[in-house]
């Protein structure tokens, strides 16, 4: 087991618990998707694992070691990478510089440069815009840059918060193609995705969250097909996205 949350509770500032004694397990190499209504705490779970928020109680284990409360840079060194919701790019820096920042923890700069070449060949659209400020890219391109930047450090475990948020369907398609590619690279993925169909289509296993707790979990195709869950969390009829 790669990652385990055990009865974790957390909230912001002095406020109430957003995540309420949540437990879940993530196995290496699989792709997971978290769905649920707004305010269910999905983003909060990612922030918890990613070190942006510390748990109030419970434990978070990675490869068996306790990682709850560690800083993001410490987690990154262990291989846990969070791709937060936008805006998360360095908008004034060029695409190239953004990517190189992705390799910040790589002490061997030549390795970083090699990775950069790899990334450019994987994502020709980024190679095209190498010198442009990241802020000038379109929404879809920015999201691709975001994912590419995370790849620069070859994380073992990547969490992506709302990858297709605010994107036109075509751009969203592109982003999910990349997510599929990430899967094929063997990276363990945990997605939070508003577009339930897409999220469940690309993942192996799904968690359904509501009010800070895990209500259901199971293989993605089962969850997708389950009429109860559909009604509660996805609106009455299946829609084509």
């Amino acid at each position, binding site marked *: 087991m790669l990652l385990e949350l055990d009865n974790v509770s957390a*909230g*912001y*500032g002095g*406020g*109430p618990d*957003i995540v309420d004694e949540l437990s879940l397990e993530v196995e290496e190499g699989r792709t997971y998707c978290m769905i649920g209504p707004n*305010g269910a705490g999905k983003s909060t779970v990612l922030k918890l694992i990613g070190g942006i928020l510390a748990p109030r109680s419970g434990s978070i284990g990675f490869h068996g070691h306790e990682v709850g409360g560690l800083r993001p840079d410490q987690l990154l060194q262990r291989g846990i990478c969070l791709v937060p919701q936008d805006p998360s790019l360095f908008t004034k820096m060029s695409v190239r510089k953004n990517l190189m920042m992705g390799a910040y923890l790589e002490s061997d700069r030549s390795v970083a440069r090699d990775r950069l070449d790899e990334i450019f060949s994987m994502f020709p659209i980024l190679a095209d815009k190498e010198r442009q400020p990241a802020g000038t890219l379109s929404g879809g391109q920015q999201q691709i840059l975001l994912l590419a930047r995370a790849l620069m450090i070859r994380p073992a475990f990547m969490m992506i918060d709302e990858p297709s948020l605010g994107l036109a369907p075509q751009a969203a398609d592109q982003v999910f193609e990349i997510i599929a590619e990430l899967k094929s690279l063997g990276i363990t993925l945990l997605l939070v995705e508003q577009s339930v169909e897409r999220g469940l289509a690309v993942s192996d296993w799904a968690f359904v969250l509501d*009010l800070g707790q895990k209500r259901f979990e199971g293989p993605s195709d089962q969850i997708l097909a389950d009429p109860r869950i559909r009604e509660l969390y996805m609106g009455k009829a299946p829609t084509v996205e």
Partner: protein
Amino acid sequence: MVDTHQDPLLATQPPAQPSSNGRRSRVVCSIGLTGLLLLLPLSRPIVGGLYNYVMQVATIALMWVALATSWNLIGGYAGYISLGNNVFFGIGGYLAGALLVYQGWSPFVTALLAGLVGFLVGLMVGLITLRTRGPAFIIATIALLLMAALIFDNWELVGGANGLSLPLPQFPRDWARAPFYLAMLIAAAGSVVLSWKVAHSKLGLGLRALAQDEVKAEVLGIDTKRYKIIAFALSGIFPAVVGAIWGYSLTYLRPSIFFTIGIAAQMVLMAIIGGRATVAGPAVGAILLVTLNEASVSQFGSSELNIVVTGGILIVVLLFFPLGIVGSLRQRGKLPAFLDWD
């Protein structure tokens, strides 16, 4: 379940009113306090030789209550730190003083005009400086203060750096202090009532929300610009009023009386120690600091050690007691009802 962390209004809801017992004790205490304050000028038989001193300290304390409570409107409720609110203080003092010297009008009357001018100046300055969200405001208030100091230092009409001498008030010797004391009392009461009214109004709720998270407040439809500007304009009224009275009581005006950073610092410190964003807090802070000042026999002004202590206390309070006296007591549930006016 409502995500209160995302709803600034709910997250910052002022706590419930005190119980009926509490309310009764509040009323009793308020009446008692008011009575005491009103009767103080008659206390000569009790305090004997200390009468003038007691009256003077009480007058100063009330003045600072007005200054700190007014500062709290913008610095506490709205969370916009102003380091130049004493500009209103000085404008009031100079306006009333000049009108006294050149027109013979009593500052006790022109103090009201001063209050209005203070409001208008606050409005104008606010319109320029409160259009952005960030720290530009704080910077502007410092600049405002220094500008005022520079202007008044060089303005021949009001004596420049040498200042302006005011005619002595014609009160019978025994009762010389009483009118100033009563005027300050009225001003202090006025400022506290204003603060209370603001705290319990839509304006107050909006200010609290924007102090917490301005962007979210705007998204919720709160007209943050208007609220900020109104708060700042209101914060200029009573400093101007007490400035008029204070200048008159000193019988001379000099820029260094009004336009120094030390005075701004005192206002801030009093509000923060007492508990910013509360009605009673600044008053508590003002009374406490004036008392301490007297106890350490140092001047109302800035000697070097005075500044060190002011700054030092500010740092300590910020780091360890950010809610101030009233706020910390409330947090622990130990706030006596007569201090609980929020």
